[in-house]
C-alpha cells in the first residue's frame, strides 16, 4: 500500500481524538541544532476543518489493527474498516515533510493495540525517538500511551514527547465495563498516577540540581518529563451518564493527576457501528456546555457540584441547561448572590458575573485603582454587557431588576423555541 493510502486510513481513524493542542511546552528553537522545529508558548492552528476543529498536529494512528473490542471505536477488533500500518520511517518522513512546509506544529501519534500493550507502546516510542534523536526535531510531539505498558517505556515516552495522554474513554467505570470490556478505569488511572509521579520526581530532581550550583564539572541538566503535561478524553453521549457524572469524574481527574486538559468528545457515528450504541449523534451544544463547565471549574473557582446542583430548569436531573451557558444558569439560580459591585467586590465575586471573563476581571481590577468602572468600560473590554447588566452595579448602572423573575430573565438569553433546532448539530 502507498504511504498516501495509509495516510487516508490512519488519519480517518484518528479523527475521533479531540485534542490538537500544541501549547504549553518548553520554549525552544532550531537555532544551533541540526533539524527543524520550535515551540514558543502558544500553539498555532495551521488550518481548520469544516467541523470547526483546529488542525495543529499531524494526528494519525501508527496502525488501526486493534485486538481490543471497544464498541464506540472505529478501529475495534470487529470493525470491517480497511486496515493499515505505517512504518516508523513513513511517519517520521510525513511529519518532517509537513512540518517543513509549515502545515503543522508537530505529531500526535496514537495506535491500535497490536500483540500487547508493551509491543505497541515500544513502536510509538520509537517514532518519537527517531524524530528527536535521528532528526533533532524540536517541534511538538504528543504520544497516546497504552495503559499497562511497562514503566521504562513510559519513561522514554516522557523523555521524547511534550505531552502524554491516556483516554479515560467514558465517564464511569460501569459504562466502560459495558462498552470496552478490555479496559478499566483502574488500570487507566494507575497509568495516569505513574505519569504524575514521574513528573514530580523529575521536577524534584531539577530543583535539587539547581540547589547544587558549585559542583564541577556541571551535571547534565535534568530534562523535564512530558513538559506539556498529560491529558485525557472521554466520549459523551454514548451511554446514559449525566453531566453531573461527567463533571465529577473530570474534577477528580484534574485533582488526582494534575491533568492539563480533559477533552470531551460528543459521540458521533462511526462506520460499521455496533448496535449497542445510540443511533444518533450527541448534540455538539452539550459538548460545548461541558467545556464551559470545565472552564468554570478550572479558572473561575466553581465546584463541580455547584454547576449542576439544583438545575431545575434543565430537562433532566444532573444535566446542564443547553439553552443558556452554565455560568448564566448558575447566576439565574442564585439571584441572592447578585448584584456584584464592580467597583468594590473582590475578584472571586467578579468572576461569578455572567459575561465577564478572567481577562476582563483582571482588567477591571487594574482599572478601578484609578477610576470608577462604568458600563462603557465593559464595552471597551468587549465583555458581554447584555449578559452582565442584570447582575452588576457600577458607577452609572444600578439594575432595577431585583424583582424580575429568573424565568423572565432567562427568556432574555435563551433562544426562542424555534431557533433551538439549529443547536442540534
Amino acid at each position: 500500500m502507498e504511504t498516501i493510502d495509509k495516510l487516508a486510513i490512519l488519519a480517518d481513524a484518528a479523527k475521533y481524538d479531540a485534542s490538537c493542542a500544541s501549547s504549553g511546552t518548553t520554549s525552544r528553537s532550531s537555532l544551533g541544532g541540526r533539524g527543524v522545529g520550535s515551540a514558543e508558548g502558544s500553539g498555532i492552528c495551521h488550518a481548520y476543518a469544516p467541523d470547526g476543529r483546529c488542525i495543529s498536529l499531524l494526528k494519525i494512528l501508527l496502525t488501526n489493527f486493534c485486538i481490543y473490542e471497544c464498541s464506540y471505536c472505529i478501529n475495534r477488533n470487529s470493525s470491517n474498516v480497511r486496515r493499515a500500518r505505517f512504518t516508523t520511517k513513513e511517519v517520521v518522513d510525513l511529519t518532517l515533510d509537513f512540518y517543513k512546509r509549515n502545515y503543522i506544529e508537530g505529531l500526535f501519534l496514537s495506535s491500535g493495540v497490536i500483540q500487547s500493550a508493551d509491543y505497541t507502546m515500544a513502536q510509538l516510542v520509537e517514532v518519537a525517538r527517531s524524530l528527536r534523536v535521528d532528526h533533532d526535531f524540536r517541534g511538538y510531539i504528543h504520544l497516546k500511551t497504552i495503559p499497562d505498558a511497562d514503566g521504562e517505556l513510559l519513561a522514554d515516552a516522557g523523555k521524547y514527547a511534550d505531552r502524554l495522554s491516556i483516554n479515560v474513554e467514558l465517564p464511569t467505570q460501569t459504562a466502560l465495563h459495558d462498552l470496552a470490556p478490555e479496559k478499566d478505569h483502574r488500570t487507566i488511572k494507575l497509568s495516569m498516577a505513574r505519569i504524575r509521579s514521574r513528573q514530580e520526581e523529575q521536577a524534584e530532581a531539577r530543583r535539587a540540581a539547581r540547589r547544587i550550583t558549585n559542583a564541577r564539572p556541571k551535571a547534565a541538566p535534568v530534562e523535564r518529563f512530558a513538559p506539556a503535561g498529560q491529558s485525557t478524553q472521554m466520549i459523551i453521549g454514548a451511554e446514559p451518564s449525566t453531566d453531573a457524572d461527567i463533571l465529577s469524574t473530570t474534577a477528580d481527574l484534574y485533582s488526582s493527576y494534575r491533568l492539563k486538559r480533559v477533552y470531551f468528545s460528543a459521540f458521533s457515528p462511526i462506520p460499521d457501528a455496533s448496535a449497542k450504541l445510540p443511533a444518533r449523534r450527541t448534540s455538539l451544544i452539550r459538548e460545548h456546555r461541558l467545556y464551559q463547565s470545565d472552564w468554570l471549574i478550572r479558572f473561575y473557582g466553581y465546584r463541580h457540584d455547584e454547576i449542576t446542583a439544583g438545575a431545575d430548569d434543565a430537562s433532566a436531573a444532573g444535566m446542564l441547561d443547553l439553552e443558556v451557558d452554565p455560568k448564566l444558569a448558575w447566576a439565574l439560580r442564585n439571584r441572592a448572590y447578585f448584584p456584584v459591585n464592580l467597583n468594590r467586590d473582590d475578584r472571586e465575586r467578579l468572576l461569578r458575573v455572567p459575561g465577564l471573563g478572567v481577562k476582563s476581571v483582571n482588567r477591571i481590577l487594574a482599572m478601578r485603582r484609578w477610576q470608577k468602572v462604568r458600563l462603557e468600560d465593559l464595552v471597551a473590554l468587549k465583555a458581554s454587557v447584555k449578559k452582565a447588566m442584570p447582575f452588576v452595579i457600577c458607577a452609572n448602572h444600578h439594575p432595577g431588576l431585583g424583582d424580575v423573575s429568573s424565568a423572565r430573565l432567562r427568556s432574555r438569553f435563551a433562544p426562542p423555541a424555534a431557533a433551538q433546532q439549529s443547536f442540534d448539530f
Partner: protein
Amino acid sequence: MEQVSLFGGSATSAGHVAVRFVPDFVGWQAAARAQWQAGLPPASLWWQADPKAKAPPAADDAPGPRVPRSFVTLARAAACYRSADRWALLYRLLWRLSHGERHLLTLVGDPDVARVNRYAKAVRRDVHKMKAFVRFRTVFEPGFDEPRYVAWFEPEHEIVAYAAGFFQRRFANMRWSILTPDRCAHWEGSGDVWFSPGTDKSAAPDGDVTEDAWRVYYRSIFNPARIKTRAMMSEMPAKYWKNLPEAALIPGLIAGADRRVAAMEADRREQDTLRCGATPEAPAAMLARRADDAESGSLQQLALRAAGCQRCALCGPATQTVFGEGPADARIMLVGEQPGDAEDLAGRPFVGPAGQLLDAALSEAGLDRRSLYVTNAVKHFKFTPKGKTRLHAKPDYHEIHACRPWLEAEIERVAPDVVVALGASAAMALLDRRISVTRQRGQRIAWHERCLIPTVHPSFILRSRERRDAEYRRFVADLSAITAT
C-alpha cells in the same frame, strides 16, 4: 502641573513641526525620543513617513521618556498597523504616559488606549495567521542538495519584519523566502534574515509534491458529523483561502457530510465478528485469576482480592486500593485512618508526609518499620477535589464499615500481639465505638485477646503548628511504650 510647565518650556508656538522618520517602530522610536526631548507636545507635530529619512542626532545627555515596559511591547505591535494615524497615536500615548498618566494603559475605556489596543490586537492576529497560513513550496536551486522553501502570503498589516523572527527560529536549518506584496523576507540558513522589496504572486512557485498528501490528510481528519462552518470561517476567513492548498476541498466536504453521516447511522449491526485476533483478557478478570492463583489465605491473595474491591463508592474516584504491608508474622500492627494523596498514587501505606513522620518517630522509639505490619482502616483515599489538589475527607461510618472485612482479615492472618490505632477513625474501626484518643492515648485496652493501644495519627502532628515539637515527643513516647511491656 508638570504638563503645563513643559508646554511653557517648549518653543513650538509657530504651528506644526513636520517630523520625517523611517516608518517602522525603530524609526518612529528614534524620532519620537528626539521630539520628546525637545519638549514638543503631540498636538504640535505632523508625522510624515519617509523611508529615506535620516535618524535624528542622538541627544545622549538629555533624559529620554520613561514608560512602562508594556507600552513598548504594545507599540511594537501597533506600529505594524496599516493606518497613517498610528504614529501620532503612539506619540500621544508616549506623551501622556510620561506626563502624569503612567497608569494610562489600564484605562481601557480611554479612546487612545482603546484604539492602540485595537491596533495591536489586529496586528497580533494577523501575525498569528501568518505563522499559521504560510505554506512553503520547494524550489530546487543549482548548487544545493536541499530545496529552498518559498511561500507567498498576503498580510493585512505591515508585519513581515515583525513576524520574520518566528520563521527564523523555527526553520533555522532550511533556506526559505516569504514573498509578500509589501516586502519579502529571506533566510539562508545562517547570518541574518534579509529583506527585499515586495513582489507579486507570479514570483512564487505554484505547487508542491507534498500538497497531495496534505489534502488527503485534511479530507480524512474532517469529521462529517460535526459540521461547524461558522467556527471554521471565523478562524480561517475566506480571504486566506486562495493561498491555502487545502481550501478548495471545503465546499465538497460540507456538501457531502450529511449523506456520509446518514449512511453511517443506517449501517449498524448486531453481530460482532473479530477480525484482528483474540481479544485480551479483561483487567478485572485478570486480577481475579491472579488472586485465585495466589496461595490460599495469604496476605498476597487478600491484597489481590482487595485490589478489585467495590464494597463502597470510594473505589470510583480513588486510583487504587492501598492494602497493608509488612511481614505476615509481625507482632505489632499499625492501623491508620486511610491512604492520602501520595499513598493513593504509590499504592503503599504511609509513604507521604505523614508516613515520613511516622518512620522518623518509629526509629526514635526503637522500632523497625520493616518488622511491623502497617495498614489503614479504609483502603481507598477519600478526597474532595479542589483545583489540582485533593483535600483529605473523613471516611464516614458506612465506608469504615464496608472496609472492615479487609482489616479483620489482615488481623486474623497476621495475628499481632499489639494493634496500634493511629487516630480516632482507626480506633473506631477497630473497637466499633468512639473513644477519645486524646484522653486514652498510650493506654492498653484489652481487645479480643490482644492489646490495643490508641494514639494520635501522625498527620495530627503535622497539623499542630507551634505545638508540633511537643506533640511529636508525645507521639514518640506513645510508640516507645508499645515495646515496654
